[in-house]
C-alpha cells in the first residue's frame, strides 16, 4: 500500500515535507498498522504516538486526507495522506499537547461526598467520554481567531458544572476561557471519535446559565429583548417578505406538492429578494406554497446564545401557525432555521430544506449561467442537517463552472458575529483565502447569515442557490 506521510524534524532545520511510502499490510488494515510498518521496515526513527490500539486512549489522533481520525480505528486506503493534528508540532506526527492538557479543568471537590443521583450521572456521562485526543482542538475554527480554549475545554467545564461534587464557579471560568467564541459550527462533533455533542450539551447549556446570572454579552441581551418584543431578530426597516407575499402561492401547471414556508428573520426582514426568488423557483416547479403570516423567529439566536426562557413560546406560535394550515411538510431556506426546527422542535410536520425538497421532487433543469461558482457549506446545513449533496446537484445543473471548496465555518454563527465581530471577521478572513484559492467569481450558499458575512469578508457576490436557479430559468 502506498501512503504519503508528512515528516518533520526540527533538528535538521528542514521544513515539514511529504514522503511517499510503500509498505505491505494485511487486509482491512488500520492507519496505525501502516505507521507501524513504516517504522518497523523503513525508518525506526519515525515518530508517532500510539498506545491502546482500541480507540480508548486517544494517543494516536492524526489527520488523514485532512480530517482528524484515530489511527488505530481508521481503515487505511491506498493513497491516504497522513499528517499530524493541526497543533504545534514536535516531530513527525507528534504534536505538543501539554498546553491543552493544562487547560482542562479538574474537580474542586470536598473531603466528603454530597449526594449524587443516577439522573445527574446520566446527564454527565455523554460529556465524560472524551479520550483527550484533541481532534476537536485541531479543527476548531474559533481557536486561532480568538482567545477561545476549545471544545473539549468547554466540555469539561460543563461536566464539572453538572456535578454536585464540584465546588467551583464553572460559568465564570468558562466565560474566561472563551465561552462566547464558539460559532456552534459543530466541526468538533464531526471529528470527535466519541461524537460528543459539545455545542448542544456544553456550550448552549453553559451560555444558558450565564444568561440566568446576567453574564451574557450586551449584544446578545439586546437581540434577545428585540425577539421578545417583536417576535423577530431583525428590526423592520422596509416592507418584509411576509408583507409582500400572498398567503398561498399557486404554482404553474400541475400541483406536484404543497408545502408550508418558514421564512426566518433574515429573509423576512433583511434580505428579502432571495426568498422572493425561491418562491418563483417553486412556482415554476409545480410546488404550491402556503405562508402563514403569524409565524415568528425560530428562536435559533436565543438557543445559541443561551436565552432559553422565550423558546417554548416561539415553538408554540410557530407550530400552531403551520398546523393551522394543514400542511404536512414545512420548507426552510435558512440553514439555521432548518436546523433549529429539525433539532430543537418536536414538530407534527416534516421539515425540509429547499435543496432537499427540489432534489426529492425533481426539478426543471435551468439553463447554464455564466461564471465560476464555488459552494460554501453552511455549518447548520452540512452538520446541523446532514445536507451536502443536494445543493451541489442544484448548483451543478445551473453553474457554467463549479469549483469545490472544503467546508469550513465562515464565522457568522453562534452569536459570534453580533457578540464578537472581530472574531467573526478573523474566521471569515481564513474562509476568504479559501474562496480565493478556488478562483471562483461568485459564491453560492443556502444560509442568509453566511451569505451576508461572506460578502463582507470576500467582497465577492454571494448568491442564494434559489436566486441562481431563477437566473437560469430566466435565460
Amino acid at each position: 500500500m502506498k501512503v504519503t506521510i508528512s515528516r518533520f524534524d526540527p533538528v535538521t532545520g528542514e521544513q515539514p515535507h511529504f514522503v511517499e511510502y510503500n509498505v505491505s499490510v494485511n487486509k482491512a488494515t488500520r492507519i496505525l498498522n501502516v505507521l507501524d510498518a513504516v517504522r518497523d521496515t523503513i525508518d525506526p526513527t519515525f515518530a508517532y504516538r500510539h498506545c491502546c490500539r482500541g480507540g480508548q486512549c486517544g494517543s494516536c489522533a492524526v489527520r488523514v486526507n485532512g480530517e482528524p481520525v484515530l489511527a488505530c480505528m481508521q481503515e487505511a486506503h491506498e493513497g491516504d495522506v497522513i499528517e499530524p493534528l493541526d497543533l504545534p508540532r514536535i516531530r513527525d506526527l507528534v504534536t505538543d499537547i501539554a498546553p491543552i492538557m493544562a487547560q482542562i479543568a479538574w474537580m474542586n471537590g470536598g473531603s466528603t461526598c454530597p449526594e449524587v443521583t443516577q439522573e445527574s450521572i446520566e446527564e454527565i456521562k455523554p460529556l465524560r467520554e472524551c479520550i483527550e485526543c484533541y481532534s476537536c482542538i485541531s479543527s476548531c475554527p474559533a481557536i486561532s481567531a480568538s482567545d477561545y480554549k476549545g471544545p473539549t475545554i468547554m466540555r469539561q467545564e460543563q461536566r464539572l458544572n453538572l456535578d454536585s461534587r464540584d465546588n467551583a464557579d464553572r460559568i465564570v471560568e468558562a466565560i474566561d476561557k472563551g465561552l462566547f467564541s464558539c460559532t456552534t459550527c459543530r466541526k468538533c462533533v464531526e471529528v470527535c471519535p466519541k461524537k460528543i455533542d459539545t455545542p448542544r450539551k456544553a456550550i448552549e447549556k453553559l451560555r444558558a446559565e450565564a444568561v440566568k446570572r446576567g453574564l451574557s454579552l450586551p449584544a446578545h441581551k439586546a437581540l434577545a429583548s428585540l425577539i421578545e418584543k417583536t417576535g423577530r431578530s431583525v428590526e423592520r426597516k422596509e416592507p418584509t417578505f411576509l408583507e409582500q407575499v400572498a398567503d398561498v402561492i399557486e404554482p404553474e401547471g400541475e400541483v406536484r406538492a404543497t408545502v408550508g414556508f418558514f421564512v426566518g428573520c433574515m429573509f423576512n426582514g433583511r434580505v428579502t429578494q432571495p426568498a422572493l426568488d425561491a418562491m418563483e423557483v417553486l412556482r415554476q416547479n409545480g410546488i404550491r406554497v402556503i405562508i402563514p403570516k403569524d409565524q415568528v423567529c425560530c428562536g435559533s439566536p436565543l438557543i445559541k446564545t443561551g436565552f432559553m426562557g422565550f423558546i417554548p413560546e416561539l415553538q408554540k406560535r410557530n407550530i400552531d401557525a403551520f398546523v393551522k394550515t394543514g400542511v404536512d411538510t414545512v420548507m426552510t431556506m435558512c440553514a439555521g432555521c432548518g436546523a433549529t426546527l429539525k433539532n430543537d422542535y418536536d414538530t407534527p410536520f416534516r421539515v425540509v430544506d429547499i435543496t432537499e425538497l427540489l432534489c426529492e421532487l425533481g426539478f426543471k433543469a435551468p439553463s447554464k449561467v455564466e461564471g465560476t461558482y464555488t459552494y460554501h457549506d453552511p455549518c447548520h446545513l452540512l452538520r446541523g442537517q446532514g445536507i451536502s449533496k443536494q445543493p451541489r446537484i442544484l448548483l451543478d445543473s445551473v453553474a457554467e463552472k463549479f469549483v469545490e471548496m472544503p467546508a469550513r465555518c465562515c464565522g457568522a454563527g453562534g452569536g459570534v458575529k453580533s457578540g464578537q465581530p472581530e472574531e467573526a471577521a478573523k474566521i471569515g478572513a481564513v474562509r476568504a483565502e479559501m474562496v480565493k484559492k478556488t478562483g471562483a467569481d461568485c459564491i453560492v450558499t443556502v444560509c442568509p447569515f453566511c451569505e451576508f458575512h461572506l460578502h463582507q469578508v470576500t467582497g465577492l457576490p454571494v448568491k442564494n442557490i434559489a436566486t441562481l436557479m431563477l437566473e437560469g430559468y430566466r435565460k
Partner: protein
Amino acid sequence: MGIENTTDCHVLVIGSGGAGIRAAVEAENYGETIIVSKTITGKGGCTVMAEGGINAVLKNTDSIQTHFEDTMSGGAYLNDETLVRTLTSEAPDRIRDLFTWGAVFDLGEDNCIAQRPFGGQRCARTCFSGDHTGHEIVMTLLEKLRSSSVTIENEVTVLDLLSDGEKINGAITCDREGNLGLITADAVILATGGAGQVYDTTTNSTAGTGDGYALGYRAGAQLIDMEQVQFHPTGAVIPYDSRGRLITEAVRGEGGILKNVLGERFMEKYDPKRMDLSTRDVISRSIATEVLEGRGTEHGGVWLDVSHLPREQIESRLPIMLNQFLQFGVDIRTQPMEVAPTAHHFMGGLKITPDTLTTVPHLFAAGEVAGGVHGANRLGGNALAETQVFGRRAGISAGKCEKTTKNIDNQQIKAAEEKLNLFYKGTAKSAEVRRSMKTIMWNNVGIYRNELDLRVAERGIEKLQNTQLKISSPRELSDAVITENMLLVAHLVIEGALLRRESRGAHTRTDVKQTWTNADSPYGHTFFVKGKSGIEILEDKL
C-alpha cells in the same frame, strides 16, 4: 551520550496507569513526587482500556469474607492470603475515594453505586461506568493528579534503577529524543503494569511491555509466579491487525452467551454450573479445546452472542463494544462476535508485602507489576481494585521513607552508558526481534503447555537474547531497551512454566498428571531473583 539532566525528588513513580497515578497523588502528601511515563500520562497503562469494572463489597448481602474466598478460589489458592485480605477489605474505601473525587460510576435506583455480576463471583460485586470503567477511573485520577503538585514527566522511559548498594535511590531515564537523564529519589515505586506484549495476540496496549519486571529483576528484586499469564477468553479475531483486542467480560456479565460453530452452548460441558460466567482460565481452555477439536469458526474462534438482549441494554451498557464492532462491520445487536483467547494479565510479578515493599529496600511495586494478589488466575474486576488499594499503599509506604542525601554510584551510570553504547554496534533489528519473540511465545507458551514446546521457546528466546540489538540513532534507544526488557520477561515466563510441573489456574501443563487439587497442591510460588530461580515446596502438603 552523557547525562545532562539531573532531577531530585522524594518519591519517583514509574508508570501512569491506575496504580501509578493513585500512588503519586498519595505520595505527594509526604514530599516532592515525580511521575514518569513512557507514554502521555494516563494514556499508557491498561487501566484506561479496562472496560468491565472494579470489585468491592458495598452491599449488606455481600461480605469481605466472600470476596476473599472468591478471589482465593478463583486464583487456585496460589494467592498470597495477606495480600488478598488487604485487597478485599480496602477496596470499598478506594471506590469511595474515587467517587468522592468525581468518578461517574453508574448508580442504581437507590442512587447507590450499581454492581454487576462478573465471572467466578457469588455476588454482583463489580462497580462500573458503562463499559469504560477504566477510562472513567483514569480520568478521575488524572483530574486529581492535575490538581496536585506532582511533577508529570511525559514520554520518558526509565532504562534502569539506581542503587547506593543498600537501597534504591533513583533511575536513569531517556526522553523521546534519546537524551539521558537522572532522577534521584528517596524511594521508587514501580507501577509499570504487565507484559501482554510479549505475546503475538494480546489485549494490552503497546506499552504493556513488562519494563517493571525487568527493572526490578536487574535491581535484584525477587519476582514470583511469572508463568501465570491469564488469557482472556474473549479477544477479537478479525480483522487480523485487530486480533486480541479485548471484548469485555461485561458482555457476558450482561448476559452474552458463548456458542461453537455448531451453535452449541459448549460451556455446558465444561462448567455447567457457572456456564458463561465461569472463571477466565476455565473459559479460555474451553474455547481452545473447542477450536482444537474442530468446532471453531473459520478464523479459529467461537461465537459470543448478545443479540437476544434488548437493544437498549446493549446500547447503554456496552456502547464501546457496539461502536468498535460497528467500525469493523459487525452490528452486535443482531450479529454474534467472533472471539478467541488473548494474552491479558500477568498474575505474577514482583514479590511484595502488603505495604508494597519489594525484596529490595526503598523499591515498591503496585498494580500488575506486583505478584501474589491474584494467584494463578485473576477474577474480572479485581485488577482495577488492586491498582487503587495497592497504589495508595505504595504512595504511603514510599512517602514514609526517610529523606536522605543520595549517593550516586558513578560506576553504575558508567556501566549503563557503556551498555547502551553497545547498541550502536549491534546487528539485530528491534522490530524483527519482537516479532520473533511474540510468535515463539504464542506458539509455545500459550494456554496449553508442555515441556517440549517450552524448551523450544527457551532456546528461541535465548538465541534472541544473545544477539545484540542494533540502533543507529539515540531516538531508538528506549525502544531497544524495552525490547531487551521484553525478552527478559519472556525468559522468566518460560522458566516459571518449566518449573511449575502442575496445572494450576491459567497455567496448564498437558504433559503432567497430577493427583492433587488446587487447594492441596504441594507447590507454592515460583520465584526468580538474579542468578537463582525455583519453586516453593510446601512441606505440610507433601
